């Protein structure tokens, strides 16, 4: 191996101007991809009449808002990971992710006391939402992975979890705007399931692409 003097000579000689990674640009690009994803899903399957008419039903609206707010908070923390720094607090995302558990918990509590609601948890309607929403999350997951590779995430595993949750949240948001079912037992299992599937898949696949 050459000496560190040789290395510094070489690195200095190779220096070219470089634009810094901007978390805000990453967030703006992610927002654009999210809007395109939602528009594509809504265009393909048709938006729910209550959302399209500006009078959304309460349960789907509340679910969409929970997913949107948690997704935005985790996306902000994720994009900040592109710029590492010792001393920067990065732990809050766990709590935000835990907020998403409200949906499956509400589904389980509701299903426990109501047979009609419980029946909605089972197929045939759920798998369509899970598969379509998971596919809809792919564009955001790919974009976030490519974008984060420009930066220097110091915990590839944590970054992979967060990418999956954000991508899954976008897929769940998109499917929530087209799925006609109002029941929390359906939303809390199959729509929230999109986030779980995306997070697990991302954790399994992405760290190797995020290491540097």
């Amino acid at each position, binding site marked *: 191996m050459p000496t560190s003097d040789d290395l510094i000579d070489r690195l*200095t000689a190779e220096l070219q101007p470089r634009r810094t990674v901007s978390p805000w640009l990453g967030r703006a690009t992610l927002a654009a991809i999210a809007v395109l994803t939602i528009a594509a899903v809504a265009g393909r399957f048709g938006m729910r009449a209550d959302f399209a008419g500006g009078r959304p039903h309460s349960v789907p609206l509340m679910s969409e808002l929970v997913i949107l707010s948690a997704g935005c908070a985790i996306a902000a923390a994720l994009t900040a990971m592109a710029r590492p720094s010792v001393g920067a607090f990065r732990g809050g995302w766990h709590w935000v992710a835990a907020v998403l558990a409200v949906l499956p918990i509400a589904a389980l509590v509701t299903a426990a006391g109501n047979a009609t609601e419980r029946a909605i948890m089972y197929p045939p309607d759920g798998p369509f939402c899970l598969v379509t929403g998971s596919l809809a999350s792919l564009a955001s997951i790919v974009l976030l992975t490519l974008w984060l590779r420009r930066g220097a995430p110091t915990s590839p595993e944590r970054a992979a979890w967060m990418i999956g949750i954000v991508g899954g949240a976008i897929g769940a948001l998109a499917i929530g705007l087209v799925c006609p079912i109002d029941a929390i037992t359906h939303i809390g299992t199959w729509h929230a399931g999109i986030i779980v599937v995306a997070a697990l898949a991302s954790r399994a696949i992405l760290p190797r692409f995020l290491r540097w």
Partner: protein
Amino acid sequence: MKFDDDSLRRAMRRALDGDKPSYRLVLDVSREWLLAYYRRRVAPAMIDDLVQETLMSVHSKRQSFDPSRPYLPWLAAIARYRWVDALRRMRDTEELHPEEIAAEEDDSPIVARLSISRLLSHLPARQANVIVLTRIEGRSVAEAAQICGQSENLVKVNVHRGLKKLAALVESE
């Protein structure tokens, strides 16, 4: 010559615009800082390789530096990442030999908060003890088992789990 963090931040900002003298200054100062950083963490034989790996990471990831923030915490994060990477490589292969690690204390608060002894104190005693015995003092698994009163398999499990936890602790600092 000592440079304060603000001078380094400004030099790195100029380097991002392509200013080569500023970049050389940043790399020279970074090398000295990294030598002190790794001296307390890895065996002397590993220091130069790790410093060079980190300088290459500084070069390839320089776009991740935020010019509005101090330079040394960014460098420390890059160095810590490379150290965790080395710890992971070491987990199943080479041995740490911190008895050769220089004993002098570094005044830098960034370095101090990442000291290995402090990290070991976060591990359960059964894991910290076997890591010290096998990876720091260089004893065999059988010797460590006899000293700690654990079975050899348990020593191996505790070393593996302890190093894994150590890497996670370093990452979360």
